């Protein structure tokens, strides 16, 4: 066995392999993390990043391979073992009880029986010393996503870990909140702690990380110093080839085009104690334009989508107007019949039924709008017609699959999303509302979907895109508006929008008064 002589390595991983059925999620992965470095783990969705860190944190057992901690071979069989070794983890999806206070949530995971007041005092001290101010006695349900992340980080720091794993930490933060997080990370590094930083955002990796390991299809494709790379060279390593750029022809004559989707004074009470109310939302989308709605996750985007799609009805028919007619009291089927089409955020289980064939999933959203074509006399489904139509969509969107008409769950996330978007585009809808169009989709497929949305708009439809991905919105939108705490800001034309302006709005600068706030900021 070739022992690595470099004693400064805190963690060494050699040949770590994890196999799920026929899929090799991690294939002989090697990784070294030195003491006091911020190490980036780069890769597209599905590249094996999460599987790798789950093995490091003991949530998954590897099929083969070795892990060395401070030079000693170790077996990490559970998160408890990982914590004892000194490995802490901040997950992308928080595991916090909303009805408890921050300190109570921390106490639950410490499991050492110390009283809440002691924990609260410690957490408060720690939070201020790292520049992450937090009131330990506040209810989690009242906190913003960024503040919840602080709880997770402080919970992790209280266990004095040597290695902190952060899984996509900035995906839920505004650009300004992310800056604060980076300061904290740099301070931790200066104290000699190591950080494994998982991300697919290249700019921030270039900014704060000392070294990077790039994964593609479960294999390590390279180690590099991100500061010496360009964003595009890193992207090439991640994706394996050049990604086609999205082309956006300038929209012309939009000011005079008819308004196809109008939201007027849309208000919705919270459905559960911890969901977001919608407050007096106004928005117009005209024929030919793409409007983007930015915002940190959990600020009411899901509630807004449900209200616009008709999965939840409105009291006032005029609060949602499609092609000039009130649709607030109509179900999703009624709104589809008026020419609208919808793509929800969740693919499996919402946009598509996992255990059904693609042809059946075509019927899912189009049984009413294309009733004559797909459903015959007496409610009999025309199997040939839906099969042919599904094949047409598969071809148009370049959906890659293993069988002629596979179950939705058998497709990769990106390919299923292409099918779901294609299913709606195939109708040539005059209003299209999409929530997170390319979440978890590989770069090639994402470019394809974005291009298709732009082309739909330019052909005379109104397109509304809700997304957490600012790069995406800047790429495809003609104007961007921001949703924060259930309110929507005034749309900023793309020529005037900058990351700073949008970032401030995402952080809660007063909606509708964007210019004023910026002048004083």
């Amino acid at each position, binding site marked *: 066995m070739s022992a690595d002589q470099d004693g400064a390595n805190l963690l060494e991983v050699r040949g770590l392999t994890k196999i*799920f059925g*026929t899929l090799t999620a991690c294939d*002989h992965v090697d990784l070294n993390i030195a003491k006091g470095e911020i190490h980036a783990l780069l890769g597209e969705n599905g590249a094996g990043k999460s599987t790798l860190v789950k093995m490091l944190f003991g949530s998954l057992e590897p099929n083969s391979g070795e892990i060395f901690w401070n030079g000693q071979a170790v077996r990490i069989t559970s998160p408890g073992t990982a914590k004892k070794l000194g490995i802490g983890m901040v997950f992308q999806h928080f595991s916090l009880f909303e009805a408890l206070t921050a300190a109570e949530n921390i106490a639950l995971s410490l499991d050492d029986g110390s009283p809440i007041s002691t924990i609260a005092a410690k957490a408060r001290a720690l939070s201020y010393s790292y520049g992450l101010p937090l009131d330990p006695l506040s209810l989690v349900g009242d906190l913003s996503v960024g503040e919840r992340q602080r709880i997770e980080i402080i919970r992790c720091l209280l266990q004095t870990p040597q290695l902190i794993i952060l899984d996509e930490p900035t995906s839920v933060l505004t650009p300004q909140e992310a800056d604060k997080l980076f300061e904290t990370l740099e301070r931790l590094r200066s104290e000699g702690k190591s950080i494994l930083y998982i991300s697919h955002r290249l700019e921030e990796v270039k900014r704060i990380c000392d070294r990077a390991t790039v994964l593609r299809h479960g294999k390590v494709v390279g180690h590099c110093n991100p500061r010496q790379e360009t964003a595009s060279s890193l992207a090439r390593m991640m994706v394996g080839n050049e990604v086609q750029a999205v082309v956006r022809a300038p929209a012309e004559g939009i000011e005079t085009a008819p308004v196809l989707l109008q939201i007027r004074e849309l208000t919705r009470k919270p459905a559960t104690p911890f969901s977001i109310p919608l407050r007096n939302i106004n928005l117009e989308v005209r024929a030919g334009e793409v409007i983007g709605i930015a915002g940190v996750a959990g600020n009411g985007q899901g509630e807004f989508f449900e209200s616009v799609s008709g999965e939840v009805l409105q009291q006032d028919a005029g609060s949602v107007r499609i092609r000039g007619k009130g649709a607030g009291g109509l*179900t999703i089927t009624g709104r589809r019949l008026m020419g609208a089409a919808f793509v929800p955020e969740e693919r499996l289980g919402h946009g598509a039924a996992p255990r*059904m064939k693609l042809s059946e999933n075509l019927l*899912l959203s189009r049984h009413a709008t294309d009733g004559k074509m797909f459903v015959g006399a007496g409610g*009999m489904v025309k199997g040939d017609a839906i099969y042919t139509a599904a094949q047409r969509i598969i071809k148009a969107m370049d959906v890659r699959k293993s069988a002629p008409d596979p179950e939705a769950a058998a497709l990769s996330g990106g390919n299923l999303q292409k099918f779901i978007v294609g299913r709606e585009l195939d109708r040539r809808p005059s209003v299209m509302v999409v929530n997170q169009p390319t979440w978890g989709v590989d770069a090639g497929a994402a470019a394809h979907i974005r291009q298709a949305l732009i082309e739909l708009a330019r052909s005379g439809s109104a397109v509304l895109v809700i997304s957490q991905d600012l790069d995406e919105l800047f790429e495809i939108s003609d104007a961007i508006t921001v949703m924060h705490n259930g309110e929507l800001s005034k749309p900023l034309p793309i020529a005037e929008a900058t990351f700073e302006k949008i970032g401030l709005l995402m952080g809660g600068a007063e909606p509708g008064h964007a210019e004023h706030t910026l002048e004083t900021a």
Partner: protein
Amino acid sequence: MRLELVKRPQRSMLFSALSPFIAFVLTIIAGAIMFALLGVNPLTAFRIYFIEPISQVWQMHELAIKAAPLILIAVGLSVCYKANIWNIGAEGQFILGGIVGSIFPVLFPQFEGPLVLPLMLLFGMVGGAAYAAIPALLKTRFNTNEILTSLMLVYVAQLFLDWLVRGPWRDPQGHGFPQTIQFNDSAILPELLPESGRANWGFVFALVAAILIWILMSRMLKGFEVRVLGSSPRAGRFAGFGLNRMVFFAFLLSGALAGLAGISEVSGAIGQLQPVISPGYGFTAIIVAFLGRLNPLGIVAAGLVLALTYLGGEAVQSALGISDKVARVFQGMLLFFVLGCDTLIHYRIRLIGFAAPKLETVPKLEEAR
């Protein structure tokens, strides 16, 4: 040591199809052990239990009589279960179908003619459906658990029937026996082939229902709606299908079929109302539905098998002096093994010891870089 169920990456289509047969073989083996423990030669017992009850033509008629209600109820239940709606109260809907369908022959015995029977069948279906509407209403209005409400309503129905035949509907010339008057001839469901046995039109109803439900589920938009809402309710809502409407549809359909089975049994096999009109058809039909893979055509086959367990139970009681509760034991074992086989088709069992398992080294196939 602990056991863990690990989801299999691929479901074997072959074993999915074979599962009921494997379950049947396992039931036979367990049954053999049971008979041996009771001191009976298992081979003799099996001959009496499974072979003799269907060795003559008239006995096939008896099989059809027993299978008809099982199939009718089970095809209705299959729609419920596919929609992920758990109607456990078919026994009660069966009884209410029998009661409401008997209104004409019991209260208006002088009303005769060709119209009587169709009206009775219709009333039976309405009675079963109306009784099934109660748990549906409770579920959609108050979000109650339909398993509990539908099950509890079974006991209400049983006691209501008992009260009726001992009280207001008792035959005044019946010497105090708890039963209604004998139905007049135009209220009796005719036999199919009177010269060879007793089987009545109930069996035909069952086959027609199975075929119609099969077409509904596999070919029609409504069946698609049932499957979508059952497997992914949120996708169903996105499709514009209403979950509450589906709860009513599934309960009313299965209730109507159970009610039809009830009135067919009363007007066909029995000819009057008694305190007990079902040997647990409504519960056994749950086994039939699952043994038939919730597929209406599979349910026809499964219904015949379960009907045989009833006949076999009666046969071993008279020939060997073993309690006919043996039939219940067989039915229970069959359900147990079917569910067990299904689980093992989707999952495999992994034993996890406290001692760390040795990791095997996977040979490196190629260099990544």
